[in-house]
């Protein structure tokens, strides 16, 4: 079993709150090692400290790697590499959009929350939008309204 095999298996593990995106594209998987004897060690980092989905994702990751034929699997969740939305892959951003969520605004080192005032609408791509609430139905989403296509929408919050 190779590191690539492990990543391939993890591509099938989805975020239970956003089932169109894998934990790899989400940037939750921070490290994968495979020993000579096929023992796999996966390290993950939670999106939010209190994310209730992390235990489900940890269990699903263990199962997926086990079924792919690992001799043994250990999955650790640590804060060694803090998760930020900049860890999302391009495929991950596309998957969010497919789910009807505006992908998070990308930023350099320091995040200024005023970027949320003009999030791009996931339906018509207009930036003529209004921030309604920085808190939404899950910890990682904010609420917006598009003044162009007159639709309410949710955005994945930059952190």
């Amino acid at each position, binding site marked *: 079993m190779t590191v690539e095999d492990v990543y391939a298996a993890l591509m099938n593990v989805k975020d239970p709150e956003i089932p169109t995106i894998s934990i790899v594209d989400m940037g939750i998987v921070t490290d994968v090692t495979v020993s000579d004897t096929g023992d796999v060690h996966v390290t993950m980092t939670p999106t939010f400290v209190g994310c209730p989905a992390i235990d489900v994702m940890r269990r699903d990751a263990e199962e997926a790697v086990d079924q792919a034929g690992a001799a043994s699997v250990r999955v650790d969740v640590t804060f060694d590499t803090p*998760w*930020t939305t900049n860890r999302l892959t391009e495929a991950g951003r596309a998957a969010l959009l497919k789910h009807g969520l505006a992908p998070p605004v990308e930023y350099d080192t320091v995040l200024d929350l005023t970027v949320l005032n003009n999030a791009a609408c996931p339906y018509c791509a207009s930036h003529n939008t209004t921030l309604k*609430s920085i808190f939404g139905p899950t910890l990682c989403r904010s609420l917006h309204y598009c003044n162009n296509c007159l639709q309410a929408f949710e955005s994945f919050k930059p952190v």
Partner: protein
Amino acid sequence: MNTEAIVNLLYRVADDALIIAHRHSEWTGMGPILEEDIAFSSIAQDKLGHAQALYAIMHEHFAQPKPDQAAFMRNAAAMRCCQFVELPNGEYDFSLVRHFLFDSAEMFRYHAFTDSSFEPLAKLSRKVIGEIKYHLYHAQTWMVQLGAQGNEVSRARMQSALNEAWPYALGIFEPGPFESALIADGVFIGEEALKEQWQTFVSDVCRDANLTIPSDVEPAYGGRSGYHTEHLQPLLDEMTEVFKIDPSAEW
């Protein structure tokens, strides 16, 4: 490093997060408008996550009880939270003002922790500040909105809530028995230094909000050594009611 000092510090911070999370969660289903209901509920969930992560660090590194046991099996006298977080929510104005004053302190506290010589705390804090940024943004927006940009009634209510909250807010920074050890070991900058950073920031925002900070106020100390208001034990009784039916249950 002084283990006893770090454990004492972590219980203070974790208990603050646990108790304010419970108070915030009392707005779930009761908020004045839907967005505010969601905001307080989300912040509560974040804070609960922070408390759990801190209890987990203590369990892993210092042989303290597991997070659920630490959160649910201690009585009021064993809790190290400040009295501020245990006060009832009151009206929405008081909840907002407390939310602002408390989260400002948390922001500076976790920022200081990112430089802590106790590495697990530093790592967690780098993550936590990204979340508290949202909490503080929410609180600060409402301070200015209802203070300077509101009407006479909203400003008067915010001022009155600020007057009521202030002695308790100062109580956040009640020094503990290990201040000098924590500072000497590079674990934490200490409550006094933290308070100075906080006071400068809070003064600026209150000025923007056209609110006046009360002067010559005695801080409400006691919480950090287990002396609490009469409001904490009933909160704990309610919060732990289900857990205590069967503490060994698997959830």
